[in-house]
Structures are given as C-alpha cells and as structure tokens.
C-alpha cells in the first residue's frame, strides 16, 4: 500500500541482503509511533509486528535482488503496517496454509499452540501468531503477480483516534 503526499506514515524499501535494516526499521517505527501517540505499549507492538513481517519477507524473498517494502499508514482509527515482497512461488501455498491456521481462534491460545508445534520443527514459525497475540493485530494476506502483501491492522483505542491526523 503506497503512501500519498497527504498520508501520515512512513515507508522503507530495501534489498533482502540488508538484514540489519530490519532492526533499523523496527527502531524507527517504535520512535515514530512513540512520538505520534505517546503510548509505548502501542509503539512496541507496531514495531515488533513490522520486525516479524520483515523477517519473513526477507527470508522468503524469491531472490536477494527483489526489494522488500514496509509501509506504515496512520489512519483516524487504526494503524496499518504492510510488508510486501516478491515471494518464492514454492512458499506461497505454505504461507496461505499457515495464514489459515494462525488466524483462527483465540490469539493467545494459537500462539501457545504454535510454540508447542515449533519444538517439532526446524523453523520457528511463530511470527504471525506472535503478531496476533502480542501485537493484538488483525492480519490480512493478499497476493498479486508474485508479490505477497501481509498487512497487520491495529485498531486504535478511543483516546488515540484522530490523535495524529
């Protein structure tokens, strides 16, 4: 989701080779949201989600030359964090299946279930469940022409609605 000149938010695009830019993005997002909302819990949750989504996007990019984008979009009553990458086609079905599982039921219960399952796997596969449970975010997945877009949606509490716009 691209930002327009009248939107409030931030966007960064980088090569998957630059792993350290994931933490730079997380730190920037935390600072931006902290300054915008004055709520460290909300800013930590948004920053953590950006980090986890970017880790997945970088790990599963189709090549090291295909850029990864992270956009934060602040709206009146919610914050959207969208991460896009050119995903390895073989990973797309795995991601869809993972999404279907992770987005079911109580977020904390699912996170605990995924933790338990991760002990039997080589990979952690905790990121999406963590975003729902710890980030308290809603997740959406879309794909188009090989580009995968994962969006985390944070609904703002009443006292923060319109705080930035």
């Amino acid at each position, binding site marked *: 989701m691209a930002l327009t000149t009248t939107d409030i938010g931030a966007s960064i695009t980088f090569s998957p080779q630059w792993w350290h830019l994931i933490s730079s993005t997380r730190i920037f997002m935390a600072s931006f949201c902290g300054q915008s909302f004055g709520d460290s819990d909300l800013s930590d949750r948004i920053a953590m989600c950006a980090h986890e989504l970017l880790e997945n996007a970088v790990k599963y990019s189709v090549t090291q030359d295909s850029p990864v984008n992270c956009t934060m979009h602040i709206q009146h009553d919610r914050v959207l964090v969208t991460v896009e990458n050119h995903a390895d086609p073989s990973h797309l079905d795995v991601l869809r299946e993972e999404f279907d599982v992770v987005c079911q039921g109580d977020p904390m219960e699912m996170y605990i279930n995924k*933790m338990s399952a991760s002990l039997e796997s080589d990979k952690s596969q*905790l990121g999406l469940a963590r975003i729902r449970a710890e980030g308290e975010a809603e997740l959406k997945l879309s794909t188009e022409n090989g580009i995968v877009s994962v969006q985390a949606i944070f609904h703002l509490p009443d006292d923060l609605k319109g705080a930035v716009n």
Partner: protein
Amino acid sequence: MPIDIEPLNLEKTTIQVLNESDGGVLLKFVGTIDHLNPSEFLDPLFDKVHSQVLEQRVPKVEADFTELNFLNSSGIKSLLKWIMRQLDLGEDKRYPIKIVYSRKITWQQTSLKAITHLSKGAVITEPR
C-alpha cells in the same frame, strides 16, 4: 563447584552466566536479540547451562530479561527449547527456573507468559 561459562559479548547483545552467593545461577540478558539465526549462539549457550547446572546440581536458575529490549521469534524458540528440556528430566533432576521480566517491555509480558504456560510449572515468573 561453580559453573563456568564464558559471557557472550556480541555487537548488540550481552549474556552473562553468574554464580550467585546462594548457590544459584543467574543468566543476565542485555541489549537486543534480532539476529538472522540467534539459535547459532543461544542453543550452545543454553546447552552449556543445562549440562553444567545438572552436573553441579545447581539448586535454582534465574533468567533476567529486564534489560533485553527485543527478542525475535527465532530467539523465543531457542529460549523455549531450553525451558522445555526440563520436562524431559525426572522430577528429582529438574532445576527451578525463575524468569524475571520487565513490566515496561511489551514483548516480555506476552511471550514470556506463553512460555511459562507451556512449561507446566517448570518456570515461575517475577515482574520487576
């Protein structure tokens, strides 16, 4: 005999394993863990802690996360693996682990709570 594990000093992360005066062991985590493969340094460290704690019959272990600002999900898995090894031990061999966490650091409230839930009593938590 005290346990002897070299501190881990990475660019953004320090982990110290300290012998306490009461016979216990303290693992002190400082900084952030957001590496591509944190298991490369966390798993060997936790292996050493686990084996030396068992060999030396250390009565208790405290893991202090209050100065660890971020732990990515791969790091969470390494921590989880260490803690869950308790459940493979006979009850007479288990060593109690106390996780000390910060009320001010968001990730610790949720993820450490989830790990504690899975550990079925092998871990207790203390907020600071």
